[in-house]
């Protein structure tokens, strides 16, 4: 019983730690790409452990007149050509796709009208194998500071 209890604790600690690792990754890598000299972070940290072929989506409201930066990055254990697409909130009208832009990790956008958008991030399948690669994906958004 004692062993079982210890193993449960180890398992629980591992679960929390893997979640925390992705959040730390978002803070470390995502914020670096955001360039905090010019941008302030907006919205919460969005980070998730993904495997090849998996996708996450994020709804985000943008205000007219503000300049936004979207940063999407994946940990080194994932393929580096992580795809991201920003569309209207229905997922129909594409505003930006990094597939057409050399898989860049950063996109700057100043909306002409206030709007709600949907950000879709997908880890591509590089080669089909029994054990797909898994790692952290982080999405960080920021808005430009006044006068920058």
């Amino acid at each position, binding site marked *: *019983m004692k*062993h*079982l209890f210890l*193993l*449960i604790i180890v*398992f629980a600690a591992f679960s*929390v730690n893997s*979640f*925390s690792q992705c*959040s730390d990754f978002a*803070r470390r890598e995502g914020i670096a790409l955001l360039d*905090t000299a010019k941008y*302030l*972070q*907006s*919205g*919460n*940290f*969005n980070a*998730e452990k*993904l495997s090849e072929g*998996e*996708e*996450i*989506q*994020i*709804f*985000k*409201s943008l*205000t007219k*007149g*503000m300049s936004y930066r979207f940063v999407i990055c994946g940990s080194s254990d994932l393929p580096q050509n992580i795809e991201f697409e920003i*569309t209207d*909130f*229905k*997922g*129909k009208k594409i505003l930006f796709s990094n597939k057409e832009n050399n898989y860049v990790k950063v996109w700057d956008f100043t909306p002409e009208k*206030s*709007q*709600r958008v*949907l950000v*879709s991030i997908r880890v591509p399948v590089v080669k089909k194998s029994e054990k797909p690669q898994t790692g952290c994906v982080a*999405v960080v*958004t920021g*808005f430009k*500071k*006044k006068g920058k």
Partner: protein
Amino acid sequence: MKNKSLIINVFSFFSVIMLSSLFLFQTRCNSNSSSKNDTVNLDKSVNKTDKAYAKAKKIFFSLPSPSETASILEMAGLKYSPEFLNSPNNASNYIGNKSMALNLGIFSADLSYVSVYEQSQATVNYMSACKELADGLHITQAIDDSVLIKIKSNMNNKEKVLTIVSETFLNSNAYLQENQRSEIAAMMMVGGWMEMLYIAINLSEKSKNKNEDVMNRIVEQRMSMEDLLGLLELYRENKEVSSLIADMENLKSTFEKMDESISPVHFKELCDKVKKIRSSYVQ
């Protein structure tokens, strides 16, 4: 005998893992389907089986931080008016997770507002109020004494202060999520969102020549409210969260009346509702 016991323990361990995995899987599936079904769209004609909702492993709702909304108010040319804020002296009045989480969000919004307008002493006071509530919620790691020291030593550097303030709000939120207290994080987001809307409404009313830009920005908060509702729906089973959903749905019904145009009657209705709800949070 010892080996048998070990085998039983290992078996029990894997049973627990299997059960936990099933539970996590169920939770994830539920949260995904909840996001799919309950995500409210501005356009009622949206088909919920759209490609956009069909294949994601997880759906997030990213709300504007209070610093962003405060910057929008500053850009609109509105003057600093601290009389609408919740006094930092009230921090010790809040007891219980819901009240503390809501008011941590409210004080974070006030903190963002005063720091955007470069009010040094008020910034320190609101950061102290945030710290008091963070301590109450046992998230001291997110707002510790070093944050206050950093604020004090960068008093004359607006950019640095804004970065610290913004990071503090987001770190508190991330810390709660990392520690499986996402409901508390969601309640904190409601407090922050509501306070910024409350400040904007009061500033708009105070403004002699009604600032059309500000009115538009207020009505546009319906979009971020949809995100907030989407976030809250994930924790609907929680009684405290479900009471906040009721507040949001109450506001939503008024927002919907302004889909086509902003009538003064409906705008006033929105302002009255926001004041009433916010008042119930800070009491």
